[in-house]
């Protein structure tokens, strides 16, 4: 219904061909060296069909960005990748999401282990109301990554350095993480995520609560982190997607419309809906 209305609206304002949702995703869903593979994923919130048959590879050592209008299911799909949707009672997931040829929704998978391998950074900076040191040290502590205090100190220092925060906080590690500025808090959250040495980092609109300067810092950080980690980023900013990502996936009403190299998606989109969105015609 909603879809019909929006298509009709687009038709009246555009001369492009009719906007119909394609039966299957356009572009290249496969990656050369996939770290994670999603196949035929459906997600339901109670009766609402939030994700409709999505298949997508997350390439190793790549940055992939998910774009699309609000409510299109990109965050929902992101949260499927480390099973954060488990915390929502009414949420049901079907299909397969493979990491190293193991389905993460298999009953034999330990969700704690999965989340240690697939870390997450959230939309709103959410440091624990503890010291900066304890924020970063929390993950290594619960997973037993450090066998001594010296090792733990080392993990905290390198994580903060990689998150580009070390110079700013090295003299006040014992102060509360909540006392930092918004941008610093978000980098602290990134440091917290990389402290457990994950393989994949999921970022759910990490810059939406930040000012342009802090955003620039986070983007710079993402470019540096791509060397070591596979990064999936959800963003509402087209420029950000264009700047930081290698591949871009466009979501629309729970469907994955199109996925491809970022350059190709932004310069030569395969589907009219994608073109409408990236040119700011709707969404």
């Amino acid at each position: 219904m909603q879809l019909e209305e929006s298509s009709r609206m687009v038709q009246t304002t555009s001369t492009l061909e009719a906007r119909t949702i394609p039966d299957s995703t356009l572009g290249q869903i496969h990656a050369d060296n996939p770290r994670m593979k999603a196949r035929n994923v459906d997600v339901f919130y109670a009766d609402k069909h939030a994700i409709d048959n999505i298949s997508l590879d997350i390439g190793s050592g790549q940055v992939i960005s998910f774009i699309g209008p609000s409510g299109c299911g990109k965050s929902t799909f992101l949260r499927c990748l480390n099973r954060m949707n488990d915390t929502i009672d009414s949420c049901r997931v079907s299909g397969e999401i493979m990491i190293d040829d193991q389905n993460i929704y298999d009953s034999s998978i330990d969700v704690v282990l999965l989340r240690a391998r697939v870390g997450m950074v959230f939309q709103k900076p959410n440091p624990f109301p503890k010291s900066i040191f304890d924020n970063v040290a929390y993950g290594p502590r619960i997973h037993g990554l450090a066998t001594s205090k010296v090792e733990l100190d080392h993990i905290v220092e390198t994580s903060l350095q990689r998150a580009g925060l070390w110079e700013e906080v090295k003299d006040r590690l014992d102060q509360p993480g909540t006392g930092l500025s918004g941008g610093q808090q978000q980098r602290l959250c990134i440091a917290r995520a990389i402290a457990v040495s994950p393989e994949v980092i999921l970022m759910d609109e990490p810059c939406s609560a930040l000012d342009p300067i802090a955003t620039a810092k986070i983007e710079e950080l993402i470019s540096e982190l791509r060397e070591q980690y596979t990064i999936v980023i959800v963003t509402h900013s087209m420029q950000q997607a264009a700047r930081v990502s290698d591949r871009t996936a466009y979501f629309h009403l729970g469907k994955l419309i199109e996925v491809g190299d970022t350059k190709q998606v932004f310069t030569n989109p395969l589907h009219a809906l994608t073109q409408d969105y990236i040119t700011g015609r709707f969404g």
Partner: protein
Amino acid sequence: MSDQVSLGLSPERAAERVAESISFRKRRENRFLFLGKSAVAVALGFLVLLFAGILSKGIPGLFQHYVTLDVQLDAERLDPSGQGTLESLADGDFDGVVRDALYEALGGPTGRKAKRQARKLISSGSGQRLMHHVLDNPDQMRSKVALQFAVDDDVDTFLRGLISRDTPEADRRVSDQMISYIDLLQAKGRISYEISDYLFFGSASRDAEMAGIRGALVGSILTLLVCIVIAFPLGVATAVYLEEMAPKNRFTEIIEININNLAAVPSVVFGIMGLAVFIVIFGMPRSIPLVGGIVLALMTLPTIIISSRASIRAVPPSIRDAALGVGASKMQTITHHVLPLAMPGMLTGTIIGMAQALGETAPLLMIGMVAFIVDVPSGVTEPGTVLPVQIFMWADFAERMFIQKTSAAIIVLLAFLISMNAAAIFLRKKLERRW
């Protein structure tokens, strides 16, 4: 016409109407403000009345009249076997020694009638008091010491001016002879008005001048200890389970509704349940702080569960996400993050529940904590009573001095309550964290 309608109000006309409505709104606001202020004033007025009433009656109750007597501690009379132990002292004639000291102070009354009147001046527990003094100070034996003894409650009432000399002798509880003795003692400066040590260190007694709250205070503390040890862990665990782990289905919904309903169940019902379950079925003794504590714990559980759930719910979900996102298990998320953040609210709720339990009388009457118990309970399985029940019992006694004792006990209870609430505020301020 239709054009005018479609154009709407002109700005001038709109401004006029807004001005009109503003004065109307202002009147309404003022009326509301006035009502609010007067409600607060009435409430404050009653509070002042309450405190003035309790304090004006209760502060005199914290004091009582003593008579100072020079007692000859005669070893032969007080400790015939000379061992200085409680058992050997029990054979001593302490009442006689106190009596002789009293006669001496009164200049040696002659005749049985005069002596009997003289004896009625001091508390019947004076011998007991002397015995405890000797037990604590064995080195004073064989010397003459000046000791204070409580005057009889009727004499105390007379000294407070509550019994008039003009009343015909037959109608008052203090005879002319006693009044002349009292005047004599006062002239010698032997009567003093001091803070009552009986009130704080004495136990339940039918004699008003000796009655004290120590037993009830200890009983209250023991009962509350049992109550908090049972109610806090159970309440917090229930809240955590219901809020964080329980599946949201019909069954847990029914449990939730029933917990909320339990909070509104009259407390006497919990007492009946305690009587039926713990005393009749389990065969526990009556009037012990253990049973009292369990019954009060059941009564305060809903309060603790409800406030704990509210404070767990107040923990921002982003903190849970953050913990789960770095791979903490559900249990780690709860124990490392949710519980510490919810703790101030939980403690506040618990202390409020405890304050409620402290003032509770009805359920404890049902399990027999209203018994007249002189001994201070030494453990949770010793018979005892609690402050509000003690107040309830004293309020029932006819002697005039019990009015003051009752008010004094109420002051102690209120002080207890206020300090618990202060502790709650202090804890909340100390543990509160900002994010």
